[in-house]
Structure formats: structure tokens, C-alpha cells
């Protein structure tokens, strides 16, 4: 029997929430960025499931673009991390508090 769409949506929700909790909890910037990738993957699963169940290929095209944007974001994010590490020699987000009130 085919898998009902609700299973894919539940899986996507669980992965998204795991990524969200990871962004909120971890203090290592690289793990935070990895958790953002988890969230993006969760939405991609969602899109592909919708594309299959509504027989519309536009969902997969959107995943294509989301993949592109994720790659661009990772490149810029890691460049920022390298620049931050050069300035402060730490990647603990608690140390970057210059903009705090």
C-alpha cells in the first residue's frame, strides 16, 4: 500500500523541530549552521511529498531552487565564521555579544 502523505509531513515536522531545537540550544556556531541545514532539508522533504501526491512537478522545481539557496547560504555563513574566528579565536556564540544591549 502507498504511504499516506501525513507520514511524510510528520517526518518533515520532526526533522524541522530537531533543527529548530538545535539552533536554539547549541553554542557552537558550526552546529547551529548544521541545524539550519536540517530545517532546510525538512522543508525539502515536505515539498517533494506534496509534489508526488498532487502530481505537480513545481514542488520539485522549488526544491531545486531551495537547494541552490542553501548552498549559497552555507558558503557565505562559513566565510563569516572564518572571519569571526580570525577576530576572536572562538566560535562560542556567547562570546559575540557586541551588539547586545
Amino acid at each position: 500500500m502507498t504511504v499516506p502523505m501525513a507520514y511524510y509531513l510528520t517526518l518533515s515536522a520532526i526533522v524541522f523541530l530537531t533543527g529548530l531545537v538545535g539552533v536554539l540550544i547549541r553554542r557552537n556556531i558550526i552546529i547551529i549552521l548544521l541545524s539550519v541545514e536540517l530545517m532546510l532539508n525538512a522543508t525539502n522533504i515536505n515539498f517533494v511529498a506534496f509534489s508526488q501526491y498532487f502530481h505537480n512537478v513545481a514542488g520539485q522545481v522549488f526544491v531545486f531552487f531551495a537547494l541552490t539557496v542553501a548552498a549559497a547560504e552555507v558558503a557565505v555563513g562559513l566565510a563569516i565564521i572564518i572571519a569571526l574566528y580570525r577576530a576572536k579565536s572562538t566560535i562560542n556564540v556567547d562570546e559575540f555579544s557586541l551588539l547586545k544591549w
Partner: protein
Amino acid sequence: MELAFFFYFALVIGVTSALVVAFRNPIYSALSLLIMFFHVAGLYVTLHAEFLAAVQIIVYAGAILVLYLFVVMLLNIKHDERYHRQWPIAGLIGGLLLVEALVLTAARYHAPTVATSGTESVVEQSGNTEAIAEVLYSTYLFPFEVASLILLVAMIGAIILAKKDIEGREA
């Protein structure tokens, strides 16, 4: 049979995504994310999106993760303390959102039986790559070009942000 494949992929995806958040060593997190990417690609294959599965492996596992591993190894990180001191609030938010998501999923949803809600439909005989290409270069041509611009901007930005200043250069 499809159910068995789905549950295997879903189980491994769930476990490895929890491990990404839980590991202390960032390289272990990156490697469990790699396993997750492969299983997400497997999930795409069960959803008849083979081209996307290949692109997922090439781009995510082959480019993005390699970039992460390079940076992790370059920065030579010592083990930091793991969890933020406000972690109960984060757990509460995550738990609330999970309950909401499960309630919404379990409630009766009105799914259309066979929805041809778009102007294009997947032609099963010609395969997934042709179906995407048919749409990508005609209807979605402009976003395609914008995506190439995004990549150009990201490349320029990454180079400028990460390069060292040459000595004696005026600001």
C-alpha cells in the same frame, strides 16, 4: 513494501538528525548529517524524484558537507560546552510545536483525490529529469536565472569575507 522502505528511511533520518544536535564533537555531527542526507535522497527515490535524489547527494553531501568539514578542520576547535543555559525554554518551544504539528496532522484533512491543480503534470513515461527540465526552462526560466545570480553573489561574498588583508593596504 513501500511502507517498509519509508519506515527504514524515516527512522534513520530521525535518529541521525537527533544525533546532529546531540554530539559534542562537530565532526561527528557533520558525519551523522551526511548519513541523513543519503537517507533523504533514498526517500526522494521512493517519491519518484530520482533527479532530485542525485542532485541532493551531489550538492548536499558532496559540496556543502565537504565545505563544513574543511572549515571544522581548519578552525581546529576544542570541545566547548554543549548546551545553552536556556535549554529548558528551547525544549519547551520544541515540544509545543511538536504537539501542534501532530495535532494538525492527525486531524481530518481534506485532501483532493487526484488534483491536477497546476498547469503542468508529471508525465510518468518520460522520467523525472525530463519532467523537471520541461518546466524549469520554460515556466520557471526567470527564477533559474535569478538562482545563478544568487550563486554569483554568494561566491563573491564568500571570497571577500574570508580573504586576508594584504599588509600595507589602506582601508
